[in-house]
């Protein structure tokens, strides 16, 4: 199987890399056999550019694909949770605006404050 596919009628050329990077997430993926097979078929069929644009359309306008409202919301929530888990995002806890009495082990002493001031404002 060659790695370059041509559709001379439509002036489309596509080179298949060993792996590609998902431009939205930055993850590396290998190119699956199924994708290669489809590309080979459409290059033969002179519809390679239609395949590419269908894929792009699906990738960028996924939201437009009609799905029942509910599942869509749940899926995007799940995706968000997955993203948070993967990215280790920092969410500032917006706790109540009261000064909590911290436990003894957590207390700051003046020395610590002095050190921090020296480091960050000194």
């Amino acid at each position, binding site marked *: 199987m060659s790695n370059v596919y041509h559709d001379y009628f439509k002036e489309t050329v596509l080179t298949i890399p060993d792996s590609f990077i998902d431009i939205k997430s*930055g993850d590396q993926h290998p190119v699956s056999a199924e994708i290669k097979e489809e590309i080979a078929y459409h290059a033969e069929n002179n519809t390679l550019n239609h395949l590419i644009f269908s894929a792009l359309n699906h990738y960028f306008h996924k939201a437009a694909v009609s799905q029942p409202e509910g599942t869509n919301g749940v899926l995007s929530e799940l995706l968000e949770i997955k993203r948070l888990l993967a990215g280790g*995002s*920092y969410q500032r806890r917006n*706790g109540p605006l009261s000064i*909590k009495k*911290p436990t003894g082990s957590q*207390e700051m002493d*003046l020395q610590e404050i002095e050190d921090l001031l020296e480091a*960050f*404002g000194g």
Partner: protein
Amino acid sequence: MNRNNFLAVDVGNSWYKALVSDQGETFDYQMPNAIALFDEEFYEKPYDEEDVDLEENLIVEIKSPSIQDRREIFYIGKSAMQQKNVSLTSFNNQKVDEERTYILLFATAAYHALLTNPAEGDLQFTIDQLAVSLPTTQYKEKKNQFKQRLIGNHTVIFHKVPGIREPKEVAVKIQIEDVIVGAEGALAYLALTRDQETLMISDDSLVKDSFKGILIGDLGGDSVDFVGIKKNKPVASVEGEPFGINQFLDHIIQKVSKNEMYSFNSRSELEEKLVAGQSEWYVEPFAGVRKDISKYITPQMRLMAIKYLEHFDRVRSRSIEIKGASRYIAVGGAAEIAEKHIKEAAVKWNERGRPIELLFPENMSQLNVQGLMILAKMQWISKNKEYADDYAYIKS
């Protein structure tokens, strides 16, 4: 501490962001970094004062030893943006030497006093502790000079205040007791690791990572500040660079003005569009005519993202202290705007086998001002040790 007033101001090139802790209650403000000379001759009297928003009608005169020309009257913030003669910041401006810094800073404090005291007549507002930021490039040399020019008494006179009887003026006397200056970028680390209220460590994992090293790249209007954090403390050797989003904004503004016949009145007007997202990326040069401007925005954001990462890469390979840093964190308003483009540009670095795994924390653009508030509270505690026992979180 709840009987005192603290003010934290992130003196940005595009926006002034302020947090006020007034007798224990917290307020936040942001004001575009814009001023314009006021001319009585061209002032349009509002038809109905009830429609006038004070924020859009801030006209001030400042009497202060930090300001040479004490007779000029200025539009500031949003009201300045609507003027033809609006002045925005120039490239690589020296914040400590420029009078606009003091005009905007004192006016921000006075604006808070005016909003929270609806009584007519003149006001007095004491700031027990002020905390302000400087870019790392200006921090060391200018810190003390900045303090000296801010401490003391300053008067802000608001002209044409809606709802106030003729002569429509209110004078606010501001008294600044003490000032602490922090460096942009390092402040963000304080905000990421400590709690606003208790000042305690709120993120242990980040503090642990700092023992290996953390590199923070704070991308602002005119400067990108890299701060290395090692063992929970900033390492001074990573210097800021004069590079920021403003040059890209100016480029977009020029292109749009030339090709679409639409003039933005300020960078902040464009920034607001950028923050709002792609659905807002159009202008209306004539009523009812919408012109898409994403074709001017996207290439510029891409370019900025690439350069930002190049800076990151150069700093991490050049700095000995930060070699082997375990985390890279993006902060600053510009990084927030271009987050998507930065992530896309990072793919290129992956391809080259030099991955830059960047973290984008929540509310990136607010971190510096939050860090300043933490710094202000700590400074106050350290100066008022005799009261320190009153606070639950201090060991006596």
